[in-house]
């Protein structure tokens, strides 16, 4: 045990002891600890295993830059996977176990895989598992790969809270620069929000002895107070993880273990990015051994958690600011030796634990090696926002280049590593001024990559990407950094390039003899840190996930024992009665033919088109001619896409010279409205045509059946319902109670039908008036009735290629002289090809069961089975007492042909017939 807790120092509360378990063993920590700091203070070095070789992993960094210690954590019956140990606050009673390791990180049985590392280089599975079939091996490989496992239990109440917010200035990062900027801006009168991902603000400020003459704790507290007094807002435990279009910054705010984070969608007028900098790892032999750590990480463990990461430490640092960190470690009692590796390759020696560093033949005993090959500004969000990165030779890292005006980078993220310089820069930029000149210079001289070494040197600690893998990728010509990343998995998973990016780039640059800017860098994409998918989910769940539209008469339908289901975005009655669905639906379909049925048709579209150009417009957007439609009359029509494919069908009523009502399919109302609005604004004078969707202002009840007229006549509407006065395909207006009423004589069943529309508030009164004379029928029965007549449901009995002439409506294509949407599409070679599918009916032999919907009509040629069409609708007809079906079948197969159908491995036979099999003469439709 080499690491230990100091008796004083840090931000932890030593007066309280928290108990927890890791990999089955008991440990303790204090409030303010993370799981990693508490384990480190307890002397635990191995906290995880690497992704591929299952090499032991300790912690590298002290915060989001650690790729090694990832746990499944359970508390109070809740288990969460993939919790980074360095960012998970310790809570009493936690039970943690390392992911990707069994039985423990210390004794992982799969650690034996490392013995085979020579045959498991980057991309080995691309080459190795090709024969006989990759998919044969895929399940086993996927089972072995990955990080934490999900226990399969649903976390009740694990629901994110999403909120939109805004501010004048968003400061990302509550360290020195962020705090100073937030205070300056708030005191200047700006509406400031500052987010900090730690539970406390301050960032790396606690590593300093003093800030502007104050202790770090005092300075941070005073600054936060000043921000609050000035009206600013400080949000802790909140990580800005992504920047999206239109200056949207996504912030995940932790709400405690077991609770989904809150998503703050922050729209900021201006953003200052004060996200700090990380240590660039030094690449050397065996640099992945537990005990090899970031120098900054070690100082952070000391200053924040009071943990000394080792007793006997070797430091290899390649930048000029490392001396102050080294001094603070020495002051805390670390026996420390600083080594300059120069051009030689150091090698970490270890058995179970780190024992020495070897360089130039000399052994330097140590239990910990701290490294920093330079400081790397954290510029992920800058990159998300579209900011460029430019390589600075002196700094030996990427710095922010040109970018959008609304976001600027300050502090260490901008390369301003000195505290005094960072404070001056932050205050200036917070008030819109230019950054003052830096008083202190910084330079880094990271060593060159040692290519061709026989020792393994790690580039990506999490994914086991070594320098050998980079060399292999280069040999195989994966020299583009984007290819390199995907071939080797460099920088993937939770690391997202934080530690591995520049090390990988410098290796590839050395391999190609190029500079790093010439090699390029990969693209940073959100999220910056791992976040649960629930964060995006929010309230869009259960009934709020694509919410259905609800009928005004739903309570009445429920009272009538309706079985409700989704039909085209509405919750509608499928059938009534509460009995066996098959029996109830057959009963309703029979009843509607024998007497009458009431059908709730409220979702049918009622889109009004008004204006002096309305007639020409409706004539243009419909396939059928509407310029000849008289007021009070109704006509059926197809709406086509520009390709000539049927998009919707409906009935259009002309109210007067300048006003039409489009009654489109229930499920297509929103789409048809958008279609109409789009064409209205394209090539038309928008002041002469207006489109209003009034669908939901109206409730519609369809009364259908031979007794429909007799029943409706019992309701006083002030309308003559006789056949002569009110023929099929006309509309009349009247009054019901005190409400205006529209009655359309249209039919979707082939029987005499009336669609009665009243204002939605009057729906219940109308329902009561009609339902005492006739029983309701549901959507399923209507589907049977319309299929008996061969009436279409667009999208069910048509597919993405169906055109009007395939459905028996070819006249307009050849006769309509005015232009219409889809006209050109109907005259293409494809539209007139010999193999088009047309609408047909199917007849099965006596006693046969209904055909399965979706069954394919097949023929055989040269030993191959060829699809010639399919069954689109199929029912048992109670009125014909036999199965009926509709479908789309190759038009070259004539009616009367017996065809073979294939469905789920079985063959069936049927005979093609006309689509309409009930009352083909239409006598019932026009009956007195």
């Amino acid at each position, binding site marked *: 045990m080499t690491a230990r807790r100091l008796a004083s120092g840090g931000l932890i509360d030593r007066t309280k002891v928290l108990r927890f378990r890791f990999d089955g063993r008991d440990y303790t920590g204090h409030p303010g600890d993370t799981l990693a700091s508490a384990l480190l203070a307890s002397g635990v070095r191995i906290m995880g295993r690497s992704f591929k070789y299952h090499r032991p992993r300790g912690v590298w960094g002290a915060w989001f830059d650690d790729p090694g210690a990832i746990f499944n954590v359970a508390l109070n019956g809740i288990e969460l996977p993939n919790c980074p140990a360095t960012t998970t606050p310790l809570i009493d009673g936690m039970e943690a176990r390392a992911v990707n390791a069994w039985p423990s990180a210390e004794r992982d049985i799969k650690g034996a895989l490392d013995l085979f590392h020579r045959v498991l280089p980057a991309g080995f599975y691309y080459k190795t598992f090709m024969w006989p079939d990759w998919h044969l091996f895929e399940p086993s490989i996927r089972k072995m790969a990955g990080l934490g496992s999900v226990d399969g239990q649903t976390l009740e109440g694990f629901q994110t809270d999403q909120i939109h917010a805004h501010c004048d200035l968003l400061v990302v990062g509550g360290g020195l620069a962020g705090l100073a900027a937030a205070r300056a801006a708030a005191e200047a009168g700006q509406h400031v929000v500052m987010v900090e991902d730690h539970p406390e603000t301050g960032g790396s400020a606690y590593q300093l002895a003093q800030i502007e003459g104050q202790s770090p704790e005092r300075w941070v507290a005073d600054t936060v107070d000043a921000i609050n007094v000035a009206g600013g807002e400080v949000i802790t435990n909140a990580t800005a993880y992504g920047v999206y279009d239109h200056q949207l910054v996504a912030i995940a705010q932790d709400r405690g273990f077991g609770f989904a984070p809150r998503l703050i969608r922050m*729209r900021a007028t201006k953003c200052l990015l004060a996200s700090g900098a990380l240590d660039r790892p030094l690449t050397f032999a065996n640099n992945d051994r537990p005990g090899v750590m970031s120098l900054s990480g070690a100082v952070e463990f000391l200053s924040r958690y009071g943990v000394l990461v080792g007793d006997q430490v070797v430091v290899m640092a390649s930048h000029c600011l490392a001396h102050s960190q080294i001094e603070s470690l020495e002051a805390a009692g670390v026996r420390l030796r600083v080594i300059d590796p120069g051009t030689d390759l150091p090698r970490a020696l270890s058995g179970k634990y780190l024992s020495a560093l070897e360089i130039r033949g000399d052994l330097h005993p140590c239990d910990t090696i701290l490294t920093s090959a330079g400081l790397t500004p954290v510029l992920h969000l800058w990159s998300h926002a579209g900011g460029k990165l430019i390589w600075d030779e002196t700094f030996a890292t990427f710095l922010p280049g040109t970018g959008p005006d609304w976001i600027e980078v300050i502090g260490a993220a901008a390369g301003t590593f000195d505290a005094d310089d960072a404070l001056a820069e932050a205050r200036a930029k917070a008030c819109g001024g230019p950054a003052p000149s830096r008083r202190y210079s910084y330079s880094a001289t990271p060593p060159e990559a040692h290519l061709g070494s026989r020792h393994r040197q790690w580039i990506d600690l999490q994914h086991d990407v070594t320098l050998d893998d980079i060399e292999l990728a280069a040999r195989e010509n994966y020299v583009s950094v984007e290819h390199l990343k995907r071939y080797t998995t460099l920088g993937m998973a939770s690391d997202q390039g934080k530690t591995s990016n520049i090390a990988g780039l410098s290796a590839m640059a050395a391999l190609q003899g190029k500079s790093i800017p010439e090699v390029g860098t990969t693209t940073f994409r959100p999220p910056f840190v791992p976040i649960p998918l629930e964060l995006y989910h929010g309230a869009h769940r259960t009934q709020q996930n694509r919410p259905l539209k609800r009928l005004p008469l739903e309570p009445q339908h429920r009272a009538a024992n309706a079985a409700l289901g989704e039909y085209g975005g509405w919750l509608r009655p499928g059938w009534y009665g509460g009995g066996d669905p098959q029996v109830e639906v057959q009963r309703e379909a029979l009843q509607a033919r024998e007497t009458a049925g009431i059908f709730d048709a409220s979702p049918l579209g009622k889109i009004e088109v008004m204006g002096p150009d309305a007639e020409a417009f409706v004539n243009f957007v419909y396939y059928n001619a509407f310029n000849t439609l008289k007021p009070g009359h109704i006509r059926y029509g197809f709406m086509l896409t520009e390709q000539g494919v049927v998009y919707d069908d409906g009935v259009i009523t002309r109210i007067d010279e300048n006003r039409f009502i489009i009654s489109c399919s229930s499920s297509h109302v929103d789409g048809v409205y958008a279609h109409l609005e789009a064409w209205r604004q394209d090539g038309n004078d928008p002041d002469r045509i207006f489109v209003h969707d009034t669908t939901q202002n109206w409730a519609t009840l369809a009364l259908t059946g031979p007794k429909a007229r007799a029943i409706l006549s019992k309701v006083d509407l002030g309308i003559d319902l006789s056949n002569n006065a009110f023929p099929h395909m006309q509309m009349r207006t009247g009054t019901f109670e005190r409400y205006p009423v529209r009655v359309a004589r249209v039919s979707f069943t082939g029987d005499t039908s009336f669609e009665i529309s009243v204002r939605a508030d009057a729906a219940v009164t109308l329902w009561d008036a009609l339902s005492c004379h006739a029983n309701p029928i549901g959507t399923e029965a209507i589907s049977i009735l319309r299929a008996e007549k061969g009436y279409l449901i667009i999208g069910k009995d048509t597919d993405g290629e169906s055109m009007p002439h395939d459905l028996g409506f070819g006249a307009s294509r050849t006769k309509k002289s005015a232009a219409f949407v889809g006209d050109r599409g109907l005259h293409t070679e494809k539209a007139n090809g010999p193999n088009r599918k047309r609408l047909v009916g199917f007849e099965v032999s006596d006693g046969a069961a209904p055909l399965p919907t979706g069954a394919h009509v097949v023929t055989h040629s040269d030993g191959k089975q060829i699809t010639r069409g399919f069954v689109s609708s199929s029912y048992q007809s109670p009125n014909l007492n036999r199965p009926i079906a509709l479908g789309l079948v190759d038009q070259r197969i004539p009616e009367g042909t017996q065809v073979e159908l294939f469905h789920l491995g079985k063959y069936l036979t049927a005979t093609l017939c006309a689509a309409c099999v009930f009352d083909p003469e239409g006598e019932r439709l026009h009956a007195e």
Partner: protein
Amino acid sequence: MRNDNAKWAPAQGMSFDPHVTKNATLKRVQPERQTLLSGPFARLLEMINVSDATGWPAPASGSSYALRLRRDRILSVNGPPIEEGWHEASGCAVSDMTDGYAVISLSGPDALTVLQRGTEINPAEPSASAARLFGSYGVILYAYGSDQTYRIHVPRAHLDGLWDLLRT
């Protein structure tokens, strides 16, 4: 054929009881008349005899007012009765929408925060239009009367869903 009765909580029809929490109150408002008018904006205002139409954040007030939905469309709330159809003289189209939109009132100190959970709304950012997307719902949202009261017009068929979203 599926029976999803149990999956969907019964719609409340129009009989919603007010939902009151410590800092926000949700209740239904039932205007006597809602009229959708489209045409040149100035002519629309003339037709219903108002000087302007409410967008965001300036509040509507009184019992009769107009809401601007887009440059050529307003919703008149409790305005004068106007015959439906095309009005040749003014070049405006008129449709009754009294039952087409359900209206919800949200008031109290937390009202704006509740709204900000469903939509990006900022009193400092004005909009000529009161039409917005709130959660999954296309609504008309505006301030009404005092600065802590807001009204939302939602297509009637989505009233249950929006009520549930606001309530939770």
